[in-house]
């Protein structure tokens, strides 16, 4: 008799448990299905398309031709160069500024900290399209910035921010730095608040200067966060689209065209060449993987 109830209990429990397992898999598999459908499936499909050439829907299988074409495509090389110029100059500039501001704004005795933090962060609430347009007007030939620079006697004639290949790149870098420095600063500030103040106390007693404290304590303690922000910034920069599109239109000529914009143009502006556009798309994936791996290495090694 007791054996039987035990058995019933067991099966009952087993059933309940089975039901739970089944439910938990449902919870997990719904989003997985979406991610497979909208991320992995298209990427696999893209690889298949990238082996084809043709316009619109008439595609012929041409193997690796599209990938070979990349190396001789001047427009592609320009887009990659531009993207890397933004990457090399903008990310370090922004991270250094963000670190500097976060340390300044983390001082206990500083007044109006909240206001300063808010003002530096505020650009992060704007849409990329909106701020790009505002910057375009600010930096027009007779716009505010040129007037201010001339008023301060820093320049004699207006700078052609939008018409000069060099200054257009500088403008993009200025704009992105304005938009994202505060955003990154918030990550550093929250990490700084987790550092035990006793460490700085001890360093001061040992006679470490503020600069030494910054390089010997702050930077090493923030290393994981710096790594995180530099990887997310890298992925962001490699996909840069909204700003060149709305601020400079990729111009003058192709001076600020990015890889993303080139993919967009190949697929939706020119006669659609999806096969080649897919090959260019894969170049971004490769760049993201390589750069993230490098940063991961550098960020971890010195620990």
């Amino acid at each position, binding site marked *: 008799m007791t054996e039987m109830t035990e058995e019933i209990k067991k099966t009952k429990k087993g059933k309940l448990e089975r039901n739970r*397992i089944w*439910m*938990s*898999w449902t*919870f*997990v598999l*719904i*989003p*997985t299905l*979406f*991610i497979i*459908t*909208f*991320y992995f*499936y*298209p*990427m696999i*499909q*893209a690889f298949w*398309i990238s082996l084809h050439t043709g316009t619109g829907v008439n595609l012929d299988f041409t193997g690796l031709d599209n990938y070979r074409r990349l190396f001789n495509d001047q427009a592609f090389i320009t887009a990659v160069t531009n993207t890397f110029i933004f990457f090399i100059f903008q990310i370090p500039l922004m991270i250094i500024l963000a670190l500097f501001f976060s340390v300044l*704004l983390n001082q206990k005795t500083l007044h109006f900290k909240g206001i*300063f933090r808010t*003002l530096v962060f505020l*650009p992060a*609430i*704007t*849409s*990329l*399209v*909106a701020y790009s*347009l*505002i*910057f375009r*007007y*600010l930096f027009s030939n*007779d*716009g*505010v910035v040129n*007037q201010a620079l001339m008023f301060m006697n820093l320049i004699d004639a207006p700078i052609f921010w939008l018409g000069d290949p060099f200054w257009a790149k500088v403008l993009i870098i200025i704009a992105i730095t304005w938009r994202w420095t505060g955003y990154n600063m918030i*990550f550093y500030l*929250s990490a700084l608040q987790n550092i035990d103040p006793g460490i700085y106390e001890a360093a001061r007693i040992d006679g470490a200067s503020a600069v030494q404290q910054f390089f010997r304590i702050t930077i090493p303690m923030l290393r994981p966060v710096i790594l*995180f922000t530099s990887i997310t910034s890298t992925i962001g920069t490699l*996909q840069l689209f*909204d700003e060149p*599109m*709305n601020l400079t239109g990729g111009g003058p000529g192709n001076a600020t065209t990015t890889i*993303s914009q080139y*993919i*967009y143009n190949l*697929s*939706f502006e020119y006669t659609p060449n*999806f096969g080649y*556009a*897919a090959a260019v*798309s*894969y170049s*971004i*994936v490769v760049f993201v*993987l390589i750069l*993230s791996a490098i940063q991961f290495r550098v960020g971890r090694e010195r620990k």
Partner: protein
Amino acid sequence: MKNEKRMKRIATYVFLILVSFIFFFPFYFLIVSITNPSIDITRGDLLPGSHLIENFRTMIETTPIGLSIWNSALVSVGQTIISIFVSSLAGYGFEVHPSRGKEVVYNIILLSMMIPFAALMVPLFRLFGTISGIVPALGIDTLFGVVLPYVSTAFLVFFFRQNTKMFPKELIEAGRIDGLSELGIFVKIFIPTMKTTYAAAGIVTFMNSWNNYLWPLIVLQSPSNYTVPLVISAMGSGYTIDYGSVMIAIFITTIPTAVIFFVLQKYFVQGMVGSIK
């Protein structure tokens, strides 16, 4: 020594005021510009004018801005509700019922974070072409089409899994004793307990959706379906640009994100930073 310290203090404040000025200046320019006629904005007029009502009227009369705000609201609210529900369900499932098989699935989901959207635009557009052929209401040139790729994102699944670690597991047992189903426990216990996590995730998702430009640009074709960034971009890049109405459109469509930021600042920061703690 004391004097030197004070000088340093003053220098710090001067520097911070200068920095704040630079960061705030574009906002000031935006606010002033909504009151100025087009010609003064290109000349860089920095004083308020009396053109506010006229700019507003031009904007209403010449652009579908009102409709685009409605479209953006539908897309952003819809995307936020659906994606945080679906993604939190997964985060919860991974954390509360862990198993070896699920870890494999979880890692596959995380892997999708390495796929940049720029690389997805072409194949995704083609996929939606196929979807259009089967269910036109979900495909190209529909608001559903804007939302669908974001129904579930690796970032949100990751974010919810990380935060579920703080969820007291005893509550699940309590729910089971009360006879709640697994879904019942999730809806009636987990969601109310994790309100702040939901607020944080919701804010970040809403902002991203409200400001999203590239995917709507690709998937939407008729101007009556345009979302805010598309309309503003079109306003700002025509041959005859009315700067006053562009500025007022930017101003009005930035208000929602500004309000969210100022009212829910605490959750906002948590939503940003919470994922890496």
